[in-house]
């Protein structure tokens, strides 16, 4: 066993430089050989088990798999084919988690089932990767495919490969209209190598293979009931362990931004929630959360969207101290004053080209960190506002952007989420640095009337000197006068954002409009809210000491 493994290891080391060059040097570490199967029964059935696994770009080949195949294909060919396949998943399809998630989502639109959608996406990605390799590179993937034991779906895929690659994989060509002939015909028409059409293509793929997969699923369920295991994918499944936490984070962020559809995002996150938990991914950067904490998909959606609108970190300012000190030398010229001459550097001479004078500069030291403002966000979640858990709410997104900007600059954020506050429709979060709690409070929706309770608001403002206030509402607040009265008394910077014109908003503007510390924005398009909020924060931060 060990000698086999060592031999295979040597083969890997010998061919890896060539394979890397063939694929134009992907950033992947040298593949490893795994000796024992993780599960004892793996590969003991009719099939060979899993030949290749990928964990965050590390490819791991199964020694047992290679040995089992050795009577049908040489180890070198098998290893190279598996590496070609694995590398192409990294360099071409799916390439990143965002693409993986999109393919899954498109497949699910057709098959309407999580497990089936994952399988469809997996098969599709395999077909794309293998076809790309066969077309663009010299590869032994056809030889590998020929030598594998095939279940029903694998036979269809192999027939497809025969047709689109023009090679013989040992599947007898169907005469007339065989059982899967029309499936293969449909599959052969799909433009697998056209990346721009992948999302249409995976739907077409799903349509064609759906009946087969459903059949297989039923058979597998029957088998598992009787103690069997079903076919494993020899080139490995495409789970989240292919990606690092950062790649998953980036993928979700891109997916949220690209889609801007809460329901779809939520669906995908919930479908992958078990895998995400398994991978240790959590909302606060995935560290230390453990596997038991559930992901809140809605909160995650706003969090990822807000990250896309992020502002740069404010640098710690340098303050001038006021006192001058000699700093650098510069040459003395005839006619220049002589009181700043540095006699030592001038070698005691006063003559052009030799004499140096001191240039003085004001001392500088690091500026103060305190005085950086915290932020209080008041968000309206009355019935006239959109429920952020049902549809994308730009009001919540704007508030999320504000929260993100302040938190990233190590400022605390408090949230006052109000609907009919005097009747209990409110949620108050005291000043905190905990991002998840802030977002969770922002995403709460009451859907009742609109009234602030000043007794809730005042304690959050009093005693804090440099507090910034953001209020995002449609201004249809029943006790608006009270609010106006209070704002007229305080000196804090207030940014009020509301959508559309209405008499309340006009009343508010008229009453408050002249105050220098208060900015009111009437937003025509909801989509402008995040930009307005961020623009204001940028001004505030640049103006801050």
């Amino acid at each position, binding site marked *: 066993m060990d000698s086999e493994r060592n031999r295979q290891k040597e083969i890997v080391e010998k061919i890896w430089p060539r394979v890397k060059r063939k694929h134009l040097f992907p950033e992947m570490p040298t593949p490893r050989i795994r000796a024992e199967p993780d599960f004892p029964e793996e590969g003991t059935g009719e099939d060979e088990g899993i030949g290749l696994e990928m964990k965050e770009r590390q490819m791991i080949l199964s020694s047992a798999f290679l040995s089992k195949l050795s009577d049908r294909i040489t180890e070198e060919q098998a290893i190279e084919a598996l590496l070609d396949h694995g590398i192409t998943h990294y360099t071409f399809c799916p390439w990143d988690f965002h693409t993986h998630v999109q393919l899954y989502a498109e497949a699910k639109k*057709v098959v309407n089932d999580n497990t089936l959608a994952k399988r469809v996406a997996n098969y599709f990605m395999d077909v794309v990767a293998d076809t790309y390799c066969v077309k663009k590179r010299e590869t032994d993937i056809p030889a590998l495919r020929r030598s594998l034991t095939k279940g029903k779906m694998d036979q269809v895929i192999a027939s497809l490969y025969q*047709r689109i690659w023009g090679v013989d994989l040992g599947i007898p060509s169907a005469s007339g209209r065989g059982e899967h002939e*029309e499936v293969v015909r449909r599959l*052969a*028409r*799909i433009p697998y190598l*056209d990346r721009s059409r992948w999302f*249409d293509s995976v739907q*077409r793929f799903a349509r064609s293979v759906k009946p087969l997969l459903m059949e297989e699923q039923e058979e597998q369920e029957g088998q598992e009931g009787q103690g069997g295991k079903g076919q494993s994918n020899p080139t490995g499944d495409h789970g989240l362990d292919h990606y690092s936490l950062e790649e998953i984070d980036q993928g979700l962020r891109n997916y949220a931004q690209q889609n801007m559809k809460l329901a779809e995002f939520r669906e995908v996150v919930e479908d992958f929630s078990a895998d995400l938990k398994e991978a240790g991914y959590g909302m606060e950067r995935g560290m230390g959360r453990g596997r038991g904490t559930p992901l809140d998909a809605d909160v995650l959606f706003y969090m990822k969207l807000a990250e896309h609108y992020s502002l740069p970190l404010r640098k710690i300012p340098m303050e001038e101290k006021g006192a001058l000190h000699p700093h650098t030398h510069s040459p003395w010229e005839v006619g220049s004053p002589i009181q700043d001459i540095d006699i030592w550097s001038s070698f005691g001479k006063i003559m052009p080209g030799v004499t140096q004078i001191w240039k003085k500069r004001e001392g500088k030291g690091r500026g103060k960190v305190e005085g950086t403002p915290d932020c209080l966000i008041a968000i309206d979640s009355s019935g006239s506002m959109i429920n952020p858990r049902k549809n994308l709410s730009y009001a919540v997104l704007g508030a999320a952007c504000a929260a993100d900007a302040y938190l990233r600059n190590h400022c605390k954020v408090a949230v006052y989420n109000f609907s009919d506050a005097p009747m209990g429709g409110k949620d108050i979060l005291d000043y905190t640095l905990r991002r998840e709690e802030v977002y969770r409070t922002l995403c709460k929706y009451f859907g009742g009337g609109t009234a602030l309770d000043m007794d809730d608001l005042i304690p959050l403002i009093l005693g804090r000197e440099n507090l910034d206030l953001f209020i995002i509402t449609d201004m249809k607040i029943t006790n608006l006068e009270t609010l106006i009265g209070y704002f007229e008394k305080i000196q804090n910077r207030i940014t009020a954002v509301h959508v559309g014109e209405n008499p309340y908003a006009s009343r508010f503007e008229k009453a408050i409009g002249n105050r220098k510390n208060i900015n009111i924005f009437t937003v025509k398009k909801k989509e402008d809210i995040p930009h307005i909020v961020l623009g204001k924060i940028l001004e505030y931060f640049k103006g801050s000491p």
Partner: protein
Amino acid sequence: METTLSIKRSKRISKGASPKSASPQDRTNEARTILGENVDRMKPISLQTKEPSETSGHKEPRFKNPFEEFGTYALPQKDIPLDSIVRSTEVVMDQIRRGYEKLLEEEAKELVWMVQYNTIIKAYEVAERYVREIEYSAEDIEDFCFALENTRKIPYLIPGPAGLYISALCNYASEEEILLKLSELKTEINLLGFRLSKGKRLLIEGDTGDFTGIGVEGGELIVEGNAKNWTGAGMRSGKILVRKNIGLHTGEWMMGGEIFVGGRVRGLGNIVEGKVYEREKLIYPGKARSPNLNY
């Protein structure tokens, strides 16, 4: 404009390699060596030595070719059957799409089209004309149905002309049996199976719209889903089988043939001749008889 290279005599220059004391001619030669051919270019044009290539009249590049190293590169051509399949599919799809667009231009000006006997006939004739010129397969028809929903590919889906066009495609397809998997289609297309001719078998997976199988002329139409209103209207002969439910005016002005409904029939139309079965029970003409469902 002449350029002179002057070396400041007032500076003493120490170099790593020891320079010999240089005469003015040596210095000029050294300058020429340093500056190379550009020295000539800086002289007045009349004093410039002519390059042999200029005197002979043959043009050579004045500037270095920035792409020189790629001069011998040849694009590796490796076509696999997939390439030709996809290419020919695209070509056919283009032709089919153009045919449809021409049909709309002629028959659905301003994108308005009314379902009337004469408009149906006329539109179908136009569709036939374009369809006859194209070589396509059954899968192309199915792909076209899905392409209709993608407004990036085909901007306008007008259910009537679309259905007639698809019916013409089915009728003129080389295959005798055509399977259209339309269950994922969001739109229900009307007028599918129009004038399905004898010897043709059209199997549709999914639901269909109104006027399904109208004017069937001996062919066999199977709908693995629901059909809407006016199904089988004016059919002359042949079979229509709807697995699930069917709408109103079923078999309106039907002249012959049989309609089998696996689910419920909402309503029958004015049937001239022919048979309608609901869940294996003959509901038109009146007596209940078991049909011969030999599929």
